[in-house]
């Protein structure tokens, strides 16, 4: 291989791109569009994580105990809670503490609470626990409700759960979308290279008789695919740059509540990602096409 002039292969690849200019442009546009969608999605997810990261802390469950329980039984339940997996912290609030809290919350009416003191206290003893894994919170809720002596379990899942499921939903959509785009791009490149091979099949045949190795025949086509990917990556980067900066400006100047990554902070990742994914997609698509269309 080293004896071959690399410029020959690059030259051949460019010639072929030029000769099939319609297919070349079509595949570059499609691959670039895929990359832009992919990149926008990735940036969106990154921004979301930036904003939603801290909200996961509200993982709390309130446990109401049966008022009939004596202190030993309450202690017993506390131990059970400690032994459960996914239980992170445990806080006990006795009914007296509960009443006191309430009295402070409603200080203007504190006199009224006199009637609820001692035996008349209507509040139950309570545990507040936090959990580690939000996806298993409902399981935990069920397990808690099955424990003897617990009268009521309130899971404040709402927001935490919504955020979490939104995130995982996004990730799922993103993954599928990515897979789909990848398949489409590969397919387009397979066809482009197929046409390129087809238009040179006589030439390739003669090259074989002359004693050309498979590497010699195949390299220009692989390069052709990689170049398509490289161009697509470059174009996608420029488009992404424009799009993202546009949105970034709106967010920064008008919706100050939301935090976003600035393009100037992430451009290296975007560029490197686009060029790498583009080139790899091109080269892989081309290899698949050659395996199918060049029975060497």
């Amino acid at each position, binding site marked *: 291989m080293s*004896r*071959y*002039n690399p410029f*020959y292969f690059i030259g051949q690849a460019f010639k072929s791109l030029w000769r099939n200019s319609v297919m070349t442009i079509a595949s570059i546009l499609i691959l670039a569009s895929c990359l832009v969608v992919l990149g926008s999605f990735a940036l969106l997810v990154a921004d979301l994580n930036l904003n939603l990261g801290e909200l996961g802390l509200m993982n709390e469950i309130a446990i109401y105990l049966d008022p009939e329980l004596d202190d030993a039984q309450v202690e017993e339940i506390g131990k059970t809670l400690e032994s459960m997996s996914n239980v992170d912290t445990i806080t006990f609030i006795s009914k007296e503490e509960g009443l006191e809290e309430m009295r402070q919350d409603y200080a203007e009416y504190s006199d009224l609470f006199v009637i609820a003191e001692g035996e008349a206290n209507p509040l139950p003893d309570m545990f507040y626990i936090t959990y580690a894994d939000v996806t298993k919170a409902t399981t935990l809720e069920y397990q808690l409700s099955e424990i003897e002596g617990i009268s009521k379990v309130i899971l404040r899942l709402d927001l935490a759960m919504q955020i979490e499921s939104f995130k995982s939903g996004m990730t799922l959509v993103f993954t599928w979308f990515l897979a789909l785009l990848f398949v489409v791009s590969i397919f387009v490149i397979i066809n482009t290279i197929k046409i390129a091979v087809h238009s040179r099949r*006589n*030439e390739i*045949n*003669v*090259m*074989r*008789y*002359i*004693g*050309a*190795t*498979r590497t*010699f025949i195949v390299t220009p086509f692989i390069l052709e695919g990689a170049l398509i990917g490289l161009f697509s990556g470059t174009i996608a980067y420029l488009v992404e740059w424009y799009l993202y900066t546009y949105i970034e400006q709106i967010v920064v100047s008008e919706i100050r509540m939301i935090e976003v990554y600035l393009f100037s902070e992430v451009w290296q990742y975007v560029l490197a990602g686009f060029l790498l994914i583009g080139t790899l997609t091109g080269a892989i698509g081309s290899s698949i096409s050659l395996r199918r269309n060049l029975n*060497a």
Partner: protein
Amino acid sequence: MIELQNVKKVYPNKTAALNGVTLRIDDGEFVFVVGHSGAGKTTLMRLLLREEKPTSGKLIINDFDLTKMPNYKVAHYRRQLGVVFQDFRLFPNKTVYENVAFAMHVVGTPASKIRKRVPAILNTVGLGDKLNRYPNELSGGEQQRVALARALANNPKIIIADEPTGNIDPEMSIEIMNLLLKINRLGKTVIVVTHEKSLVDYYQQRVVTIEHGKVTEDKVGGMFE
């Protein structure tokens, strides 16, 4: 040396193109291969080129056992051979010079050597003054001479020509045959498949006749019918 022992070739469509060919061609020989259409001549050439594998039998060329050769060695094996086709198969968008140079480029010859050798070869085939022509600016005979130059470019030991004069008028055919003979005198083994009885009779060389996939005659002299 080319050696075939009981070589059979059955195509996937069950056509038995060769039914047990045993043949030996020594280094430096000149051999005509003749026979009726469909006799199996081209099939024999395709086996030599390792374009097809024999169904059974033994096929050894120089130090290469073609029945056992893995695919990745084929390219290097083919550099032992120079091929000429009836329809020339030149690269239409390359000049005469580039066509020959490309054959050398393909096998990794340094550019300086290519620059020296290509004009010399083209002189040998009498095209020293047409280096910059494109194939469609040449006569059939001239195109075939370019093809011959290309076949010679990498200095192969064996030249295989399947009906090299099939698309050329008779006077030009003689020129091509003379060239092939000249190449043979330079020490190369030359195998020429042909239909042209007059040429075969004229040159009085070894003639291998193939009929129905078998060698039916192998003599020095004319074409026996």
